[in-house]
């Protein structure tokens, strides 16, 4: 395992190393010390490596990740794993706003709580939050799955497209065009697999499913109050 101490190494050097800019993948496990809330740590990774960050990070940790497995032993700032394509980002603590924003693929696990706009504009990735999430979760989410084991704030799934949302706790309110859907046996199986992948034990029978009512897919004067 290679250890990088951000007290002595610049963020740019860290990312160049983890992005394997020289094309050589000689080491597959990395530990990052003293992140100190710095922004853009471990972004744009493209190889199946393991990165463990010991401490709290700033904005966009794990941004646009491809294939790498990133673990943060701490809290993360805005936009963790934003636009992730594949791989896995696991946050042992809490996450700020826009966690997993626009993620196309991969798995984001937040073992604590996530703030507002979690999984906003999700495009195919999976986000699993062990705790609770704030308002406007999954706003305009297009594809993928958001799973919340705790409670959800106001306006869940506002202007939702085809993403699926599973919630075990309470929902403060649903956003425009979001409705509760039947929890089919296929959905239960799918959720069960996702929970296993996220490494959390939970009874799928206690979850409710939410999705798009698809009433706002076309402009219609009768729906104007919803916009």
């Amino acid at each position: 395992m290679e250890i990088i101490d951000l007290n002595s190494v610049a963020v740019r050097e860290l990312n160049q190393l983890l992005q394997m800019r020289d094309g050589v993948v000689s080491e597959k496990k990395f530990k990052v010390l003293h992140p100190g809330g710095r922004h853009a740590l471990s972004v744009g990774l493209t190889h199946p490596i393991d990165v463990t960050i010991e401490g709290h990070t700033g904005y966009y940790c794990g941004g646009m990740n491809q294939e790498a497995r990133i673990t943060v032993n701490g809290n993360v700032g805005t936009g963790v794993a934003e636009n992730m394509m594949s791989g896995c980002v696991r946050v042992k603590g809490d996450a700020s706003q826009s966690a997993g924003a626009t993620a196309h693929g991969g798995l984001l696990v937040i073992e604590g709580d996530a703030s507002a706009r979690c999984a906003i504009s999700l495009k195919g990735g999976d986000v699993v939050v062990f705790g609770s999430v704030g308002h406007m979760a999954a706003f305009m989410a297009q594809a993928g799955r958001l799973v919340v084991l705790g409670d959800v704030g106001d306006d869940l799934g506002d202007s939702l497209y085809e993403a699926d949302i599973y919630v075990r706790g309470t929902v403060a309110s649903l956003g425009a065009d979001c409705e509760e859907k039947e929890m089919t046996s296929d959905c239960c199986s799918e959720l069960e697999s996702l929970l296993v992948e996220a490494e959390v034990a939970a009874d799928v029978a206690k979850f409710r499913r939410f999705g798009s009512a698809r009433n706002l897919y076309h402009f219609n004067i009768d729906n104007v109050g919803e916009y």
Partner: protein
Amino acid sequence: MNDGKNTSGSATYTPKVIDEIHRAAREGIYSIRGAGAKRAVPNFDDLVFLGASMSRYPLEGYRERCDTNVVIGARYASKPIELDIPITIAGMSFGALGANAKRALGLGASAMGTSTTTGDGGMTQEEREASKTLIYQYLPSRYGMTPNQLRQADAIEVVIGQGAKPGGGGMLLGQKITDRVAEMRTLPAGIDQRSACRHPDWTGPDDLEIKIQELREITNWEKPIYVKVGATRTRYDVMLAVKAGADAVVIDGMQGGTAATQNIFIEDVGIPTLPAVRLAVEALQELDMHRKVQLIVSGGIRTGGDVAKALALGADAVSIGMAALMALNCNAPLFEDDYASLGTRPGECHMCHTGRCPVGITTQDAELEKRLDPEEGARRVQNYLSTLTMECQTLARACGKSHVHNLEPEDMVALTVEAAAMAGVPLAGTDWIPGVNK
């Protein structure tokens, strides 16, 4: 004025206004259309150059060099953009435009040594292949946005807004959401697609600085990063973009076009390009960043005169969208029955949003697209860009400049008080610049 025949119209409730009220009452929804502002606003036509005279001498038109090259993005990027001409093609999406149009623009621009720009929905392989220099738009929707495409681009343009609709998101109506467009945007085919108006993971200039840092880290600090804003609070927007670390700022005036948005947005939001250029240049000068952070201006650039005037006011380059489409035959008197079926006619068409473009540009319909041959279209774009460049050089040489960037505000006067105030140049025949001196 009453003509005594009980047929006089109202200046307030003109026939056009009455028509719109009737339409709104009938349909119950705002009017959506393409193109840019149609209202008359002060523009570059209101400025003229002061050619050489006793105190200035010109350059020979066909013998003495007048260079046109421009470098964009050297502030932080290790691989800045080098263009042969200061006229670029503005961001227009595959989806809004058909594949043939994107290819024609790419080939035509490349032949002239300049850049094209992607749009909402990401980059198509065809446009990457057709464009020697391709700017990749990073938009609020992030439709089709991938790190691989970021790395394939030559520069990244963070779009905060555009001149046709500052403060509004994109719109692509269902008739243009074909299977391919839907797949690129991860959306169901055929829906009326609404792009977000705000970025999903940052708000405000302090966040933007961090976002730019992330984009640079992901692209190894190689790509120039532009920040594009619609012209509104231009002075502050430019200053904040510079503070956030932009290599270049794109200012899009209210004449700038769009594929589709509310008519009220196009006509009633934003400021004209003319004052926006001056405000942007003043902001850069105040920060000692003029010519260090490049200024690209768009919105109603049509002629080499417009190009020269924008450069004389201090822009480093201009960007054209609607005019480039017109070079491809937008609004040309062809297929007039099809214009009529859309309720319009050549010269007045703004039906881009319908996907039924009579000349095959703003459409995803395979049959309509055949009306635009990409190779022929590329030649027209090349010819048009070449004409703009030669016109711009003609004016620069007449003012004695060996590079188009040597044009300056002192080379121009304004024909109207409004233009003098907005552009910050004297009213012709006077030394009066409203707002600057009495």
